[in-house]
């Protein structure tokens, strides 16, 4: 990583399905076809059973805010104009288990952030894929689901 630019998707083969999915507005993660464990980030083998056999499964692009912070001061040159910006760990339930992802939390005031709140993925297209950010699920949406 250089110190003056934002890090970007590197385009490794084993991450490609995730970036392609995100670019198409879909949240996909790996699932072990041997034992069924889901995993994130992508890996070449299953941490639970060591099997290399893997499939990519689409997750419903919603999650629950496990924890969050609002960054008021950053020394990362690529982000120096961004503060304050919120980052959270989001729990996503997929058939077979649950993964936590680190993502930007967008479109809400720091005072609105609460552990456990419902979020929806928002895909931010960048050079070679899309970053997964998260926004609050609106009251209307919540009634639908």
């Amino acid at each position: 990583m250089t110190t003056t630019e934002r890090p970007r998707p590197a385009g490794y083969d084993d991450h490609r399905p995730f970036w392609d999915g995100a670019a198409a507005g879909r949240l996909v993660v790996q699932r072990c076809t041997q034992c069924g464990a889901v995993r994130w980030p992508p890996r070449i083998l299953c941490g639970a059973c060591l099997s290399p056999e893997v499939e990519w499964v689409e997750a419903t692009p919603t999650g629950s805010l496990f924890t969050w912070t609002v960054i008021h001061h950053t020394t990362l040159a690529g982000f120096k104009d961004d503060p304050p910006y919120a980052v959270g760990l989001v729990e996503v339930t997929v058939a077979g288990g649950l993964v936590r992802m680190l993502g930007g939390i967008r479109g809400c005031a720091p005072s609105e952030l609460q552990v456990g709140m419902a979020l929806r993925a928002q895909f931010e297209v960048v050079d070679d894929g899309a970053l997964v950010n998260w926004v609050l699920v609106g009251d209307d949406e919540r009634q639908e689901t």
Partner: protein
Amino acid sequence: MAWSDICITGLGESPVGKVPEKSSTDLYAGVILDAVDDAGITPDDVDVLITGGSRVDPYLYHAEMMAEYLGITPPTCLTVNTGGSTSVSLLRQAAALLLAGMAEHVVIAKADNLATGMSRDSVVESMATIGHPELESPQGPTIPSLYALIEQRYLHRASLRPEEIAPVAVVDRYHASLNPAAQYRDPITTEDVLASRLISDPLRLLECAPVSDGGCAVVLSRRERASGKRPLVNVLAVGQAHDFEHVTQASSLEYTGARISGPAAFRDAGVSPSEIDVAMIYDAFAFIQCMQLEDLGFCAPGEGAAFVGDGNTRLGGALPVNTHGGVLSHSHAGRPSALFLVVEAARQLRNECGGRQVHGAATALVHGEGGILASHATAVLRAAS
């Protein structure tokens, strides 16, 4: 040979804070020579030289470079340039070499000049390499923010307000005010902590480690090879736990590996938490101390902040913690911070702490963590009889 034959025999410390007249290499040389002299041996007696490298002078073979600088040729040189748990876990590796008969004297040294040797932002950015480079770094997480994520969840789990954590910084500063060697010595109040600016919610500036110059060194020896120049300190046991690297992969973000490393160290030492007279707990961020007090068994889950707030960790309290001022107020030159915990614990057990001495201190605990509360090491030390 048994663990009771493994002794800390020598200690060396440089000035901390801003030491612009010294390079990191000069700081290293000074603390190694001081520790060796304190142990009553000569540099040629060192069989194993372990250094923590330097961010400012990032030599690949750093320990060899230091040996060359000192004009010595120890049979074993190791550069172990990882974070806050390493200074404590290295006590275990050193003990193993001594127990195996592969060494008689081991030196562990860490020094750096982060405050004056490089710009502050480049220091912090140089530390900011814990996130997944492809899948997390594009979101701009800083090191403090990754810790803040854990603090936020801890506050939620324990039903605490951020202001209940602030006394950790106040107590560290009080102890620093008693330590002429500490970097920040002016007493502060809870209000000062809460008035300091937010770095990454809920972490405020005075709850975050400073950036410092400084270093220290420790000599470990087989008891029969100790010169007897200074009182001996036994390393009774070291426990370790290594759970994860990325915060998304932690088995729990509500409890830490101290729940494994602590009991392992207590078990192997044959000591219980109630027998600890003084504790040094790595606290680059204030809330860490509260979580670790709980996870090490000094108080019940969720009561770490109250334990500190009630005065237990102050000198004169039930369990004085970080009598040198902690990482928050003594210094944070990066890798040396946790080794300073070992040095302070040994000084307490040698009864050398003057106005901050814990009277009758016989048994001490040192806990280091690194990564983002990912890697843990706990040591139990005792004044040798």
